[in-house]
């Protein structure tokens, strides 16, 4: 990474430079004043940059050099499944027949795209054990809300208007309670027990005839499989509630256990995680939702169907919750996920899960002597350690995370889940080599040693990045959210 001052694109702009090549205007020019109503012709132009093509490439290349991706190095960000993003996916998504087709073209002219979507749905149905899949939701949180809206429609169709509560474990992703709120539900929290799993007694005490659903991640955000899942499903179903599966951690259980078989009624997947989306610096994602047959009538419309080898969008869905977004989802991401699944096959997906879990357990056992490990059982694809021991010596998890940057590693997810003090959630994924895992383990052990011997080096980290620690308080107190030209 380069340390010199980085200009904003607006600071290298110079009047008279251009970076485009528009088609020539081959129809007669007309005065804008003759075409626009009074007051609607823009008076002040938008101050966009004026730069040459090389200026642009240098600018963005410099920015990319100040960014860390999976291709730059290890990225064990827990719950985000930062696995390798295959290059074939990128090529396929750019084929003109996938990238340059319009969503409102006549269906007969886009049968190839619809076939891909249909086949992806079929594959995801098998992978999750669900009866039907929609690809419409744009991301995981969007999928959560979509599924909750379907569950709500299901209850209302049954005349069940008194179900106002969604149960969420205290270890859940923040999107779970937020999605529940946006779907019009109140959230009830269920506690985690001393084994790091949902406390069954507490669950029994919070369910009732006002329960609309339980949202669960399995394995949970501690990386632990909810081994009482069968009983939990029974508890929720017995009171008439539905079971919702947050698929953020599906990478831990492919070909080992399917949400549909565990008793879940609805599932969302994060195709940008388990199925190599890629992550794009924060998106786009794709959040397909799979449902048990009870919920099929409520799927967002249109529903993609196959009739006599012809693919069709079915809009005649009287009980549908409606649209959750224009068109049919983040198709480009779905193409990438499909390409990944077809590159892996059934053996490859199973191996992905097995190595993801093997790698996580290996790291966990190697780190166990050096950090507090709140839950000792085998983990799945990720695990959470606590920096509580180091905190007693005056070094916080945040400091250790920043110190990892000096070793060239992206830190784990920190301070999450909320029920672990000074938590660090580590997810190595299956695409990393043992050498990489070992070098990360060595760095962690060295940092633990530094905490004991030279805490300042950790407390003042990072030392090698393009900027040192940034003042987040100032950013929030005096928000500067855009560039303004100095006058």
């Amino acid at each position, binding site marked *: 990474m380069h340390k010199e001052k*980085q200009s*904003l694109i607006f600071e290298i702009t110079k009047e008279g430079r251009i970076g485009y*090549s528009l*088609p020539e*205007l081959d129809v007669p020019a007309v005065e*804008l004043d003759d*075409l*626009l109503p009074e007051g*609607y012709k823009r008076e002040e132009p*938008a101050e*966009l*940059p*004026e730069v040459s093509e090389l200026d642009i490439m240098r600018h963005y*290349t410099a*920015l990319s*050099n100040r*960014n860390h*991706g999976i291709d730059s190095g290890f990225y064990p960000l827990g719950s985000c499944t930062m696995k*390798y*993003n295959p290059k074939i996916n990128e090529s396929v998504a750019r084929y003109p*027949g996938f*990238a340059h*087709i*319009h*969503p*409102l073209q006549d269906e007969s002219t886009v049968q190839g*795209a619809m076939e891909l979507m249909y086949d992806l749905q079929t594959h995801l149905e*098998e*992978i999750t054990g669900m009866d039907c899949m929609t690809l419409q939701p744009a991301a995981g949180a969007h999928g959560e809300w979509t599924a*909750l*809206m379907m569950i*709500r429609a299901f209850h209302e169709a049954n005349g069940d208007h008194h179900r106002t509560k969604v149960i969420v474990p205290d270890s859940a992703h*923040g999107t779970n*309670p*937020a999605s529940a709120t*946006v779907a019009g539900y109140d959230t009830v929290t269920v506690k985690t027990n001393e084994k790091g799993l949902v406390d069954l007694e507490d669950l029994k005490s919070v369910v009732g005839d006002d329960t609309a659903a339980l949202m669960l991640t399995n394995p949970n955000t501690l990386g632990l499989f909810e081994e009482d899942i069968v009983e939990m499903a029974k508890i929720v179903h017995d009171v008439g509630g539905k079971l919702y599966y947050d698929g953020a951690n599906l990478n831990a259980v492919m070909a080992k*256990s399917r949400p549909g*078989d565990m008793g879940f009624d609805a599932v969302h997947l994060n195709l940008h995680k388990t199925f190599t989306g890629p992550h794009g*610096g*924060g*998106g786009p994602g794709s959040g397909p939702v799979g449902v048990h047959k009870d919920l099929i009538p409520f799927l967002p419309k249109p529903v993609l169907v196959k009739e006599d080898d012809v693919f069709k969008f079915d809009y005649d869905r009287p009980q549908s919750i409606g649209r*959750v977004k*224009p068109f*049919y989802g983040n*198709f*480009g991401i779905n193409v990438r996920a499909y*390409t990944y699944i077809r*590159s892996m096959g059934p*053996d*490859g997906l*199973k191996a*992905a899960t097995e*190595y993801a879990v*093997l790698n996580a357990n290996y790291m966990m*056992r190697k780190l166990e002597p050096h950090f507090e490990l709140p839950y000792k*059982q085998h983990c799945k694809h990720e695990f959470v350690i606590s920096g509580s021991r180091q905190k007693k010596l005056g070094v916080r998890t945040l400091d250790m995370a920043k110190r990892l940057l000096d070793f060239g590693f992206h830190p784990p997810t920190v301070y999450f889940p909320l029920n672990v003090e000074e938590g660090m959630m580590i997810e190595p994924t299956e695409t990393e080599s043992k050498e990489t895992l070992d070098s990360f383990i060595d760095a962690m052990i060295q940092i633990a040693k530094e905490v004991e011997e030279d805490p300042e080096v950790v407390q003042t980290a990072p030392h090698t990045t*393009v900027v040192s620690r*940034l003042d987040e308080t100032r*950013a929030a107190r005096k928000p500067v959210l*855009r560039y303004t030209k100095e006058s």
Partner: protein
Amino acid sequence: MKHRYIPMTETDRKEMLETIGVSSVDELFEAIPEAVRFKGDYNIKKAKSESALTKELMQLAAKNADTTRYASFLGAGVYDHYKPIIVDHVISRSEFYTAYTPYQPEFSQGELQAIFEFQTMICELTGMDISNSSMYDGGTSLAEAAMLAAGHTKRKKILISETVHPEAIDTVKTYAKGQSVEVVTIPRKDGVTDIEKLESLMDDSTAAVLVQYPNFFGQIEDIEKMGEITHAAKGLFVVSSNPLALGILTPPGKLGADIAVGDAQPFGVPEAFGGPHIGYFAVTKKLMRKLPGRLVGETVDEDGKRGYVLTLQAREQHIRRDKATSNICSNQALIALAASVAMTGLGKVGTQEMAYQNIVKTRYAKEAFEKEGFNVLSNQAHFNEIVVDLKVPVKEVNDYLFEREIIGGYDLGLKFGELKNHALIAVTEQRTKEEIDALVEYTALCVQEMEALNA
């Protein structure tokens, strides 16, 4: 099994199992109860080699009629525009596309600065004070704007013009259902919002009025007037805009918008069968703390050096959990980067020129259709779309055009009963005079042939 994405060797595996203290990988899965354990293999297609798979998928892609081979006059919210070639080169840099949300700012300055620049460009185009870092697309962005307004005003009714994209209206309705907000459609008159109806529907329970500029039919409405009506009843005014059009149109920020939303797909983003596209969301200063999604702010590091961080996160789901007003987490960061590169390439002058070409070429098409005796319904000023009465079923004309390597306009009869036989024709800078002439000529020929058949 061996796979190019999985680097562990047999030796590695053995050593690791030994370290863990188990004899097989299966032992690591013992917490999964027998009753829900999946046995055997998924019944899905077997893996294919790289060459075999690319060949298969290339053939599948070739089954679709793409806009690199066909001259497309289909718009309706998604457009075939000039995409500077550099866009794809920048977003293909894997430091960008293989990163995730910039949670560790010291390691993500590139992404953060790129988003900060995106926010600035959206503010410039829309004339608004503050822009977030992106939403899923224009439709969900509009829906979130409606929900923001309902929450902010504590009112439970949304008025949405019938001239807004129909799929965006549907999306708003779904979101509104979740929040128990009522959505009322304002009827249209001559292809624009019926302002008298808006006045009569407006009351003190109205949280917001949602309009589109240019509207779904390509027309430019009296946005300012509608903003005044909205504000008189203390509602929020939400304007959904094609940001390219704002290159030459007075921006929503100058016309009274409290919230400006839309989709920046016209800036360098392929149609991609409807997504991923790139929603934007911009507000006035007073709504800053109500904004959904991620925001990047400028700050300094310990040495006083300028840097960027995610900021005002107290608004967001991972902090507020069930108190959050939006659940958005992943957004469309990479597509925001693509749009930024296109906006940078086009720049101050190119954006105006490209917008100008759209309006003039559409004007040319309008006159050409009129010369051939077609009734063009767009009496008001238009941007890059017009409504043409084809007098015969649009599907018939489009099939005829398709055989001549033209993708025709959107069949408005599919959504609007009274607009049977009417097509929404989009003309971007990409369409040559020759292609426009061919569209008009073949449409006329097709209609003649059909009328002759029916005579």
